[in-house]
């Protein structure tokens, strides 16, 4: 049989004296590539979801509720734009966060707990850090796809009037990844699911979705509750999106504040997940 004859002949020629050189350079991408292959198993639901979701939400909220709100508030209610334009960037950002959550919650717990495939990756020259980065990179690719499709829907619905509207795309992606990196850290520290993700869904994502200036300006909330928005990646990503799509007026420092908040959250989340992936794999 050829394998016995050719042992030690083929692979070595491709790898050279330092067997980890390519893995160190491209390991994160190899992990992402693997995740993308796995996603193919539910590719149809990914595509359907990313088209169906925006159309449904934009139609119901923007056109349905929106026409009612616009008729009552006139042109001054929401910074002079239609309700559809107001709510559009928020829905865009929340789609990014939802997809990032999907790709960093159960897949991460599963990689450690159910299929244990993260251990398989770590048995090769791939490091724990690269596993974490690769999972986030694959999530990022899915987020980018989702956000671009969603933004096209926004444009089609006439909900992104500004010429700089496309900048809502990177800000939604940044929001999604900032959130995803934190979820990934949490998931990598769970021993069992024990309903944790359901709880995160109900106690963190649901309130975040409702109280991050998504459907009404944060200023409409009592001062005592506005902190929910301030610590919410959704609010920061939404506000950035609004500045981009309809030129929402806010001080420049605040716009940079949103950017800084999300960037720091992403850096912290990724750094912490590096630590917990490496620790768990080397136990």
């Amino acid at each position, binding site marked *: 049989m050829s*394998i016995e004859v050719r042992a030690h002949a083929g692979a070595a020629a491709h790898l050279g004296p330092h067997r*980890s050189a390519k893995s160190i350079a491209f390991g994160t991408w190899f992990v992402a590539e693997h995740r993308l292959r796995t996603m193919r198993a539910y590719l149809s639901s990914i595509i359907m979801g990313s088209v169906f979701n925006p159309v449904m939400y934009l139609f119901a909220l923007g056109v349905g509720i929106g026409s009612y709100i616009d008729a009552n508030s006139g042109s001054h209610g929401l910074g002079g734009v239609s309700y559809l334009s107001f709510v559009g960037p928020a829905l865009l950002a929340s789609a990014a966060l939802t997809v990032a959550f999907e790709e960093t919650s159960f897949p991460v717990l599963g990689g450690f707990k159910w299929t244990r495939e993260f251990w398989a990756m770590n048995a090769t*020259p*791939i490091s724990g850090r690269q596993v974490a980065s690769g999972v986030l990179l694959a999530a990022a690719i899915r987020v980018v796809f989702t956000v671009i499709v969603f933004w096209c829907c926004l444009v089609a619905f006439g909900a992104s009037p500004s010429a700089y509207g496309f900048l809502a795309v990177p800000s939604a992606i940044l929001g999604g990844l900032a959130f995803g990196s934190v979820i990934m850290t949490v998931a990598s520290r769970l021993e069992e699911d024990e309903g944790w993700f359901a709880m995160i869904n109900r106690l963190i994502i649901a309130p975040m979705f409702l109280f991050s200036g998504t459907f009404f300006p944060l200023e409409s909330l009592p001062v005592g509750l506005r902190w929910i928005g301030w610590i919410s990646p959704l609010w920061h990503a939404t506000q950035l999106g609004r500045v981009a799509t309809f030129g929402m007026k806010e001080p420049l420092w605040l716009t940079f504040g949103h950017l800084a908040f999300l960037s720091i959250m992403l850096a912290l989340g990724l750094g912490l997940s590096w630590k917990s992936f490496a620790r768990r794999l080397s136990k």
Partner: protein
Amino acid sequence: METTNDVMIRARGLTKSFGELKAVDSVDFEVRKGEAFGLLGPNGAGKSTTMRMIACVSKRSGGELRILDRDPNEHGPDIRGHLGVVPQQDNLDVEIRVRENLIVYGRYFGLPMKFLRTKAEELIEFAQLTDKARSKVDNLSGGMKRRLTIARALINEPDILLLDEPTTGLDPQARHILWDRLFRLKEAGVTLVITTHYMDEAEQLCDRLIVMDKGRIMAAGTPAALIQEYSSREVVELRFGSDRNAAAAERLQGMGERIEVLPDRILIYTASGEEDLARIVEAGMRPVTSLVRRSSLEDVFLRLTGRSLIE
């Protein structure tokens, strides 16, 4: 990577502690090129911990460890590039197909797609999974998954293949197929390191082995040498019925080299079982059943690690 004297793995005073517990307590061993080396021991003996240190995923707490003449603390990823790892629990990606599992894994070593496509075909054939190449892993039997895991570990043409309890949980047919595959690898010159608590497996596959218990090495050598050193040539097993065992044991004192009285039977370790059995019958003792067999590694193992249950 050239190595001195063809020593693939060298451990000196190798230690791993988890808090107070010393899971591996100052063990010394060497594995040479082309050898099948066994780590035997009951649960909790430190086999898997030793294996994880060799696999460069768990850092040692003390002592020296060199794999392919390199220190895993400094060259972990490079050394891992030369290893194939078959873990105790399968960790295949069950959502993708058999062939994809091999290709994806090969990518982690930085191998190009062109090479991997041919290599995957070869390994699928080696693992006798040709009919299943396009199946999802979920649809494979336990034995097939095991063979796929071994095939996957060979994708980078490793210098050392680490197998942690490779046949645990498999039926006899599946075990024998697997042994055959491993034997072929051994013939091809692949160095094998195997942990197991199946003695027949160790006798079948290992050129040399160490018996571990509570983190320490109890004995080391070839299976034949260990049997010679720690057991007799043959064993006579006698059953008198559990209520008569103790009384019969009294009368058997002085027989063979050593007598072991168990709740259900008496074992006489001896050079010649048939002769002893004849003498017993002559003496008018009537065991319910009697059996003369050759001594096995299992006798050595039980002598060294005790008969009490470790859970």
